[in-house]
């Protein structure tokens, strides 16, 4: 592809391609999100990123019944119902998605200064509410991801609200600039600030696998892999993806497991063999608590109310 300072936009019949010099993204209309994020020839997504509403129950959550009170968020986390896709290419907002046969009108050389596509999900809760994930692709390949949760009366408190990205293979490690160690809103006093290189994707060895590995107030995280699932890719040179804060620091965890995989295990060795990378960028994180493990709740200011909006943003493929 010739050098251009604009994005190349490919109007597919079921997806929108957005490409540049060293990146190629596919936004699926069928799958409800960013289906492919190929950077320098390497794929970074296993499935489309989805809003996440659950964390694996901690011992304190179990002790105070939080998991029971908030159980419907498990379903909302596991199953996603995309109810709307909204697309703007350059200055043009599509009132209807450009699908066949309208796609026959394009020429194949479309370019744009930017693309914004957002996916709205209806939560499988009662009552239902919405979460919207919007991707704003810039000409240099950076994607500003905005995530919005619409508060709703009558819903139980949230354990977490974020966006979950699952990568096709296990990372060899990650580096981040932020706070030392594992941190939560009610457990971040003892930290040092700096840049930390983590080898592999360590899972804290709690006897019963549970929520772990959160890193609050992070400026950026860079994930390194050296394998892909592409059978024709024989290169094992490490490659990286940087995710950075937008206007506010981000919270993240980077583990080989989803919340549900952790939830299902009663011992570490029951967890599946590590084969993927699960990156959660969290806009709101519930505290872990600590007074006791048989009833005491997390301190009130570290709860996440479900009746208030939550909004956060970050940069993927940050330069």
């Amino acid at each position, binding site marked *: 592809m010739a050098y251009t300072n604009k994005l190349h936009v490919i109007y597919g019949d079921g997806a929108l391609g957005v490409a540049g010099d060293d990146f190629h993204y596919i936004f699926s209309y069928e799958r409800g999100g960013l289906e492919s994020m190929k950077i320098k020839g390497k794929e970074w997504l296993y499935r489309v990123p989805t809003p996440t509403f659950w964390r694996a129950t901690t011992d304190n959550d179990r002790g105070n019944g939080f998991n029971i009170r908030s159980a419907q968020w498990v379903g909302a986390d596991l199953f996603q119902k995309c109810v709307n896709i909204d697309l703007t290419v350059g200055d043009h907002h599509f009132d209807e998605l450009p699908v066949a046969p309208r796609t026959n009108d394009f020429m194949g050389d479309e370019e744009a200064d930017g693309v914004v596509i957002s996916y709205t999900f209806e939560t499988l809760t009662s009552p239902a509410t919405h979460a919207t994930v919007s991707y704003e692709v810039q000409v240099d390949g950076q994607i500003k991801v905005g995530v919005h949760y619409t508060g709703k009366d009558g819903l139980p408190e949230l354990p977490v609200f974020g966006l979950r990205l699952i990568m096709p293979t296990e990372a060899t490690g990650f580096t981040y600039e932020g706070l030392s160690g594992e941190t939560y809103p009610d457990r971040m*006093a003892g*930290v040092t600030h700096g840049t930390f290189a983590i080898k592999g994707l360590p899972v804290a060895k709690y*006897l019963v696998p549970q929520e*772990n590995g959160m890193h609050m107030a992070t400026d950026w995280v860079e994930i390194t892999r050296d394998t892909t699932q592409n059978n024709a890719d024989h290169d094992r040179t490490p490659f990286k993806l940087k995710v950075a804060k937008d206007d506010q620091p981000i919270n993240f965890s980077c583990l080989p497991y989803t919340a549900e995989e952790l939830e299902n295990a009663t011992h570490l060795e029951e967890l599946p063999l590590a084969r993927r990378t699960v990156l959660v960028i969290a806009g709101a994180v519930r505290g872990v608590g*600590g007074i006791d*493990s048989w009833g005491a709740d997390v*301190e009130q200011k570290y709860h996440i109310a479900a009746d208030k909006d939550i909004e956060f943003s970050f940069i993927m493929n940050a330069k």
Partner: protein
Amino acid sequence: MDADIKWLDDPETFRVNQLPAHSDHHYYGNYAEWAAGASRFTQSLDGQWQFKFAQTPQERLHGFYALDQDTTDFDSITVPSEIEMNDYAQNNYINTLIPWEGKIYRRPAYALSADDTQAGSFSTGSDNTVGMYRKTFDLDPALRGKAVRVRFEGVERAMYLWLNGHFIGYAEDSFTPSEFDLTPYIQDEGNVMAVEVFKHSTASWIEDQDMFRFSGIFRSVSLLTQPVTHVEDMTIRPVVADNFKDARFNLSLKLAGERAGSVHIMVKDADGNGLLDQSLPVTTAVDLEDVDFHDVHLWDNHDPYLYQLLVEIRDESGKLLEVVPYRFGFRRIEINDDHVVLLNGKRLIINGVNRHEWDDHRGRAITMADMTKDIATFKENNINAVRTCHYPDQISWYYLCDQNGIYMMAENNLESHATWQKMGAIEPSYNVPGSVPQWKDVVVDRARSNYETFKNHTAILFWSLGNESFAGDNLVAMNQFYKEHDDSRLTHYEGVCHTHDYSKQIPSLDPKGYLPAGGTKDYRDQISDVESWMYLPPKQVEEYLKNNPDKPFMECEYMHDMGNSDGGMGSYIELLDKYPQYFGGFIWDFIDQAIAVKDPISGKEVMRYGGDFDDRHSDYEFSGDGLMFADRTPKPAMQEVRYYYGLHK
């Protein structure tokens, strides 16, 4: 006297022919032995013993201790170790309920009525596994021809001892040393020692700690002899003067053996400068009273300065018979008129942890390496205090705490949780020890053993009567024992809070949550120098502190560190800045109790917790509340603890 298995059923029989508890001082034949840490007077019996196991008392091998017993079908077991960890008996982790919950109906003897002896309760108990140990040994040459005793440092939970076919004695109290005189039956060579270890006895009711329930000879066994004149017991009592510069030194020695020769007492500072050098004739008791020391170097967490006491026993010709070294510090703990706890005149703040003895491969048969690692972890993370939950620890741990300035709450081996708390409710209808007369001596004996063994350890600031045993006249008697014997430390007991109405002091607490239905006698004025709670939320701690606290306040357990936890610790720590009567607490707890096993599916070494051994009833992962994982790596929360405990160092 013959052994009687019915002792297992009788709370009034808990020591038979046991030698009186005494101070834990080491003694050597000369200075070279001390330097080498090898006393001519001791012989270790640790190592391989012959072993036979029985599921019940009825199935045990009667007369297994006889010299002519055929032992060809005996196995071999390592002493010290846990029988369960050797896979003879099932591992079981259980917290507050009693291990036979849902399996056997029992009540503690005399708890419901004065004539309810519960005969046969344990001696015929179908859950009462038996370990039969035999050890054949020759006396080391240095021990021959002398009086010889044996010391068991820890045996869970009741043990009978024979030597060369003769019954020697019986002991309970799993966590304090038990010594017996072997002299009448010992021979130079070919001795056969036999120990019968029962998992349960009446002691099980008062050793209902939140832990894996093990049995066996899980601490070291040694033979000891004494020189012809010997320091049998020693009480060092350093008293810091009101100016916190000067001090008075008191020393009381109980001597055994020949009353001839001299006792040479020396005290040196850490640079070797002599502060005291005095010789006295040997009599049965030697006392030094109120020796004035000036400008002493005080001991505390930051500067655990120890002085060296040396006691030499010399015969009439001046020949050295025995040297007893002991390092001690000068420190003073007190409660002032404002109900603030002071150490050396300054406010004391406890940045503490509760610490079970635990090793993921050895259970409670921990090693010196475990202990030194734990001390290093304390130092790295600003942990300045330890509660020996809920039993006395190995003797070496107390020396390490002296040397490293770790404040100790030295707890008795007492917990009777199952007898007074049921499904969360305070229901002491068959509580022991309570005020049941037949349960008094056994618990006072535990207080005595704890005191006599560890009384010289500078690190001990608090004697703790026990854990979660409700309260009653027998707890009062334990408190009194300490008050009568030791004015240099404070007493601690949390359980008494369940007898007092706090509606004025902590108005937001619902009395239903901490008081028994129908009320109870209030023991608050008779038990514990300090107000101690566990897991009281910060807001209610503050209520107590705002309402004219008449006892200093602490949490003997707080910040329950089960799994991913330790959030919100700052709410406790900030109370330290607001209320001088608050003096901190002990995090629950230091290390996960989990057992490393080889997973048959993956072949990897993995951690197992309660219930993983098909053990029921169990409290499952509740065994994992440590700041450390069971393999002694820190949990992520440790950095938070290091920070908050660093704020009031």
